[in-house]
């Protein structure tokens, strides 16, 4: 049995770096598209509502793993020769946009109708109504669920290993195979995930408590 030294730890940290990078990309890309999804889902146009309802249903009704495969082989099929990286980033962005879109749709609809009416009566246009009046309130309402999804997303990045992407879990597997110390290696990997996810979960719980006190 080989020992776990600096090189092994360094390799795991490299994996951690990709996990974090993939999460950030998925969250930012998913956030931007998710906002569009949420806005379309709550728009007055019935056609937009239907299209986005379908989009959300597809991504919530299929496993993330399958979405990864479809995008990974799909981009190859349309003749694009892209990196695993880009394929995975696209898949996570799409996945996150559907979930965040649905979470924020709920937040937008939880803002009392009187807010939109007051804004309209003042002559504010759609952009200002959304940006200045509705979203600040909706995102606050949605913060606990958004953080909850972020934690899911971090853990979900481990699925990217399946298409050859070396993130933290895959790095752990490789080190474990080299050192024959699976328990120690995965304990370290687990602690790394935990150290990222736990503070986020705490933050989410605190945001939720704050909302509940504010509602009382």
């Amino acid at each position, binding site marked *: 049995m080989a020992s776990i030294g600096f090189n092994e730890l360094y390799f795991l940290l490299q994996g951690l770096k990709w996990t974090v990078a993939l999460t950030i990309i998925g969250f930012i890309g998913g956030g931007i598209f998710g906002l569009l999804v949420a806005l379309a889902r709550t728009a007055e146009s019935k056609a937009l509502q239907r299209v986005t309802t379908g989009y959300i249903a597809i991504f919530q009704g299929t496993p993330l793993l399958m979405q990864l495969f479809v995008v990974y082989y799909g981009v190859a099929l349309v003749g694009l020769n892209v990196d695993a990286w880009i394929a995975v980033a696209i898949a996570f962005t799409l996945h996150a946009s559907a979930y965040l879109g649905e979470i924020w749709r709920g937040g937008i609809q939880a803002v*009392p109708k*009187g*807010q939109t*009416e*007051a*804004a*309209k*009566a*003042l*002559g*504010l*246009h759609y952009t*200002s109504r959304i940006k*200045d*009046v509705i979203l*600040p*309130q909706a995102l*606050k309402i949605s913060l606990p669920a958004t953080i909850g999804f972020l934690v899911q997303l971090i853990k979900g990045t481990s699925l990217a290993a399946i298409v050859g992407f070396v993130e933290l879990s895959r790095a752990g597997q490789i080190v474990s195979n080299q050192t024959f110390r699976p328990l120690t290696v995965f304990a370290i990997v687990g602690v790394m995930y935990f150290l990222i996810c736990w503070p986020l979960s705490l933050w989410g719980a605190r945001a939720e408590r704050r909302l509940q006190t504010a509602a009382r």
Partner: protein
Amino acid sequence: MPQTNASQTPLIAMEGVGKWYGAYHALKNVNIQVAKGEKIVLCGPSGSGKSTLIRCINHLEEIQEGKITVEGTVLTDSTGAVDAVRREVGMVFQSFNLFPHMTILENCTLAPMRVKKVSKAEAEATARKYLERVRIVDQADKYPAQLSGGQQQRAAIARALCMEPKAMLFDEPTSALDPEMVKEVLDTMIGLARDGMTMICVTHEMGFARQVADRVVFMAAGEIIEEAPPEEFFSNPKHQRTRAFLGEILAHH
């Protein structure tokens, strides 16, 4: 000051207005003209269409029949017409509808900055002027939740005034207030009336109606049943339904 004069075009006119919610006929052939500076009190039983009527004037609700004109602009579904009308007409709601994530001052400056594109400094100066007028300028930097109901409603009035509208619509502005706060809001509205604001007020405050209304309009089941100056309306109501309604209102006060 010239009094309302027949040749003058009305500031707000509704002609043969019909409104349906799905199959439900909420407004039936509504005709009403409001001259500049005129104060109308709109009353009637719950569900008679009072809110619907005033919400049609600033296009919070669409009409299916008839015509609404505000300051010469015919209200259509076009953005241009809706914008033009909303610039002239302010609205105050029963539930205040202040923006809870903004201070009172920010509530008052948002629309002037976004819609009229005035500078922040200018918007704040205007806001302070109107907050002074509703006597809560000392609360300018607080958030709505930190104010009493009466203060919040006065802030909402100031917010509407900051757009310098030609007319104000009030939808039961004192109905959500504790009794001890009703007077401060009514006093603010009386002050506004004295300064010559054109007003349509949905309210059951009959003391207010007597004091400021030029005309009291009574609605039932989506129709305007009767309208008259307050003395006449209260002392000599013509319709059975008006008498029944007044009997109930007065019994409660």
